C-alpha cells in the first residue's frame, strides 16, 4: 500500500510539476528547475509547541519524495512583524514556489502575502491565521475549542462549582475567540463561579505560578479551564492539594494525558479533556500545501479546518513504539518529557512522522509521503480568517458536546 502509493507519486511527479506550473502560473523557472523552492517561516521560536511543529514540517520536507523534489529552507523571523514581512519579501524575491508560515498577526502580513500570491507563490499558514483570502489558513481555531471544552467541563462538573479561567496571551485573536466561547458557556450556568482568571501566556511555568497563588486564596476550586499551560496548572493543584484534583480542559502534553488515564489520579477526582491546537497542524498544512503545489489537490476555499484533537481519559492509549500506530496517542512516561505535546503526531493524517521526526526534524526511515484525505473547509470567523465576512450564527455554541440542562 505504502509502496504503491509512493510509486504513483514519483511517476506522477513530472506531469504534476507541469500542472503546478500551469496552476500557479507566471513562474517559468519552476519547470526549468527540478526542485520546488519551499520556505518555512517561523516567527516565535524557543518553545515546545513551535519546535514540535517546525520539526514536523522539516521532517516531512525530508521525507521521500520531497527530499528529492523540494528545496526546503527554514527562516526564523522572531517576534517582530516587520522582520517577518521583510523575510517574506526576501522569500518571494528569491523565487519561492511555496511558503508555509506561522503568522504573527492576522492582518499585518496581508500586503506582503498579496504580493506573494500575485507572483504565484502558494502561501499557507498553520495554526494562526491571516485574513488575506489568497492565503490558505490551516487551523482549528474555527473548531470551537472554547465552547466545546467549556461545555465538556460544565457537564463533568454537573453545572456547578468554582472555576479558574486561564486565558492565553492577551491581545491575540485566539484568546479572544476562545474566551468569548468559553465565557458564553460558563455564563449560562449560574452554579459555575469563576474565582480567578489570569493570562497564563500559554506557558506552563507562568500558569503554575498563578494557579498556585489562586489556590492559596480559593482552596475549593473544582475546575480549571485552559488553552495551554495545562500541565503547569495541574502541577500546581498536585502540589497544593494532592488528595483532591480537578476537572480540567486543555493541551495535550504527554504527562497530562498519562495522568488523565491514571486510575489513581481519577480516584482523586481528576477528569480532563486533552484537546487544543496540536503542532501536527504544521505538518498537515505542509502536506496539504505540497499537494496543492504539485497539483494533486485543488482547494476551492481559503480556510481549512484541522480536526480538533479530542482525547478523554478513556481514549488515552499508550504507544509501544516511536509513532502513533493503531490509534495510540501517548508515550510511556520515561520516553518523552512530560511537556512533550502528543498532538505533534497524528497517526491518521501524518503517518510519516515518528518521535524522532518531531523531536529532531529528521525524516522517519522508510517513510514516504502518503496522500491526504479530503479537506474539511472551515467556517468564517471575521477578523480571524476573513475580513468583511459573516460568522456562522452559532459560532459561540458547542458543536461536539451536548449541553446539560442548567441545574
Amino acid at each position, binding site marked *: 500500500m505504502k509502496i504503491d502509493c509512493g510509486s504513483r507519486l514519483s511517476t506522477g511527479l513530472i506531469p504534476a510539476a507541469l500542472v503546478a506550473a500551469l496552476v500557479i502560473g507566471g513562474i517559468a523557472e519552476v519547470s526549468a528547475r527540478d526542485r520546488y523552492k519551499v520556505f518555512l517561516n517561523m516567527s516565535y521560536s524557543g518553545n515546545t509547541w513551535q519546535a514540535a511543529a517546525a520539526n514536523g514540517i522539516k521532517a516531512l520536507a525530508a521525507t521521500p519524495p520531497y527530499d528529492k523534489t523540494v528545496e526546503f529552507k527554514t527562516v526564523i523571523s522572531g517576534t517582530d512583524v516587520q522582520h517577518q514581512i*521583510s523575510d517574506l*519579501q526576501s522569500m518571494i524575491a528569491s523565487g519561492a514556489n511555496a511558503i508555509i508560515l506561522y503568522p504573527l*498577526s492576522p492582518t499585518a502580513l496581508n500586503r506582503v502575502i498579496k504580493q506573494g500570491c500575485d507572483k504565484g507563490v502558494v502561501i499557507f499558514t498553520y495554526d494562526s491565521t491571516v485574513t488575506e483570502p489568497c492565503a490558505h489558513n490551516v487551523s482549528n481555531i474555527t473548531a470551537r475549542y472554547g465552547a466545546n471544552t467549556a461545555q465538556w467541563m460544565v457537564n463533568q462538573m454537573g453545572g456547578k462549582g468554582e472555576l479558574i479561567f486561564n486565558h492565553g*496571551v*492577551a491581545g*491575540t485573536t485566539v*484568546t479572544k475567540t476562545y474566551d468569548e466561547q468559553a465565557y458564553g458557556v460558563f455564563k449560562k450556568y449560574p452554579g459555575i463561579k469563576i474565582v480567578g482568571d489570569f493570562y497564563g501566556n500559554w506557558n506552563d511555568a507562568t500558569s503554575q505560578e498563578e494557579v498556585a497563588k489562586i489556590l492559596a486564596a480559593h482552596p475549593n476550586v473544582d475546575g480549571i479551564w485552559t488553552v495551554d499551560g495545562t500541565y503547569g496548572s495541574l502541577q500546581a493543584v498536585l502540589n497544593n492539594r494532592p488528595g483532591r484534583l480537578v476537572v480540567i480542559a486543555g493541551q495535550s502534553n504527554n504527562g497530562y494525558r498519562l495522568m488523565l488515564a491514571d486510575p489513581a489520579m481519577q480516584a482523586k477526582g481528576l477528569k480532563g479533556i486533552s484537546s487544543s491546537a496540536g503542532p501536527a497542524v504544521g505538518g498537515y498544512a505542509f502536506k496539504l500545501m505540497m499537494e496543492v503545489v504539485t497539483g494533486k489537490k485543488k482547494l476551492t476555499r481559503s480556510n481549512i479546518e484541522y480536526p480538533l484533537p479530542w482525547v478523554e481519559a478513556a481514549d488515552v492509549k499508550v504507544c509501544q513504539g516511536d509513532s502513533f500506530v493503531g490509534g495510540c496517542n501517548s508515550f510511556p512516561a520515561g520516553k518523552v518529557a512530560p511537556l512533550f505535546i502528543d498532538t505533534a503526531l497524528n497517526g491518521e493524517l501524518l503517518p510519516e512522522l515518528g518521535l524522532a521526526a518531531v523531536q529532531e526534524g529528521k525524516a522517519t526511515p522508510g517513510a514516504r509521503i502518503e496522500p491526504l484525505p479530503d479537506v474539511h473547509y472551515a467556517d468564517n470567523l471575521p477578523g480571524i480568517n476573513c475580513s468583511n465576512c459573516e460568522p456562522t450564527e452559532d459560532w459561540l455554541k458547542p458543536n461536539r458536546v451536548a449541553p446539560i440542562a442548567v441545574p
Partner: protein
Amino acid sequence: MTAASQLAQVRSVAAGGSAAAFVLLCIMTGIYAVHEPSALSAFGISNLLNNTVVLALAASGLTLVVLCGELDLSGPGVMAIGNVVVATTSTGSLGATGNLAAVLAIGAAVGGLNGFLVAYLGLQSLAVSLGSLIVCQGVALLILPAPGGEVTDTIVQAVSGDIRAIPAPALIMAVTAGLWLLLKHSRLGVALYAVGADEPSARLSGLNTRTTKLSAFVMSGIVYAIAGFVLSAEIGSGDPRVSDSFLLFMYAAVAIGGTSLGGGRGGVLGTLVGACILSVLQKMLFALGVADFYTNIFNGVIMILAIFFGQLSAWLARARHRGQG
C-alpha cells in the same frame, strides 16, 4: 588653532560614530546587492525602506531622549496606542489628518507625563518609562483587545506608496533627517547635547535643564506616535501587541548609529543609519543563505561587530590625531 579645530572635527565625527556605521551599511548593502540582484531594483529598495521606516522613526524618537542623558522604554507603548487608535478610527469621521493629529496628541501626552516625572520630580527615567510602557500597552489592549480594525486606504497609500515615483518611506526618513538637522542646530538642539553631556554645568550655564528634558520627552513621544501611525499604514490594521518587539531593536539602532547611551553624543542621522543596518542585515543574511537558528547567531555577532567597528574607528581617529599633533 587649526589643530584644535581639527580635533573638534575628528571628535565630532568619531563621536557621532555615524561615519563608521555608514561605511558598514554600504559594505552590507554591497554584499546584499551582489547576492541578490533584485536588491537595488525599485521594488527591492521600496520594500527595504518600508521595512525600515517604522524602526527608524521609533529609534529616532528614542535618540532624542538618549541624547539628553535619559532612557525611555515607553516607545512601543505609544506606538501601540497610535496603531490601535488609527485602526479603530481611521475609517470614521476624523479623517486621515484628524487621525494623525489625535495620535500625535497622545504621543505628546505620554511623553509629557514621562518628562514631567523625570525632569520635575527627579524620578529615574528607566523606571518611569517602564511604568508608562505597561500603562500604554494596557490602554492599547482596552481600545482593541485583539488584532483587527482597518486602516483607511488614504493613509496606507500616503505612507507606504510612492509620491512622484519616490517611495513615501524614503521621503519620511529624509524629512526626519532634515528636521533633525534643524533641531540639532537650533537652541533646543544645543541644549539637548549640553544637558546630556553635563547636566550640572548646563544648569549653571543658564540652560533650563528641566524644560529641555521635558521637550526631549515630548518630542520623542510625538515621534513614537508618528512611528505608530506609519506602522498602522504599513500593516494596514491594528494589533495591540505588534509593537512590543521593537524595544530592543530601537536601542540597537541607536547604539549602532553611534549614539552614546550615556547621553550627549551621537545623533538621529546615525540612528537612521543604524536602523537601516538592522534591516539590511536581515536581508543580507537571507541573501547569503543563512537560515534557521544561524540567523540569530549572525545577528548577534554582527551587532557586536558593528559597535566594535564604530568604537575602533573612533579610537583610530583619535589616535591618528594624537600622532599628528
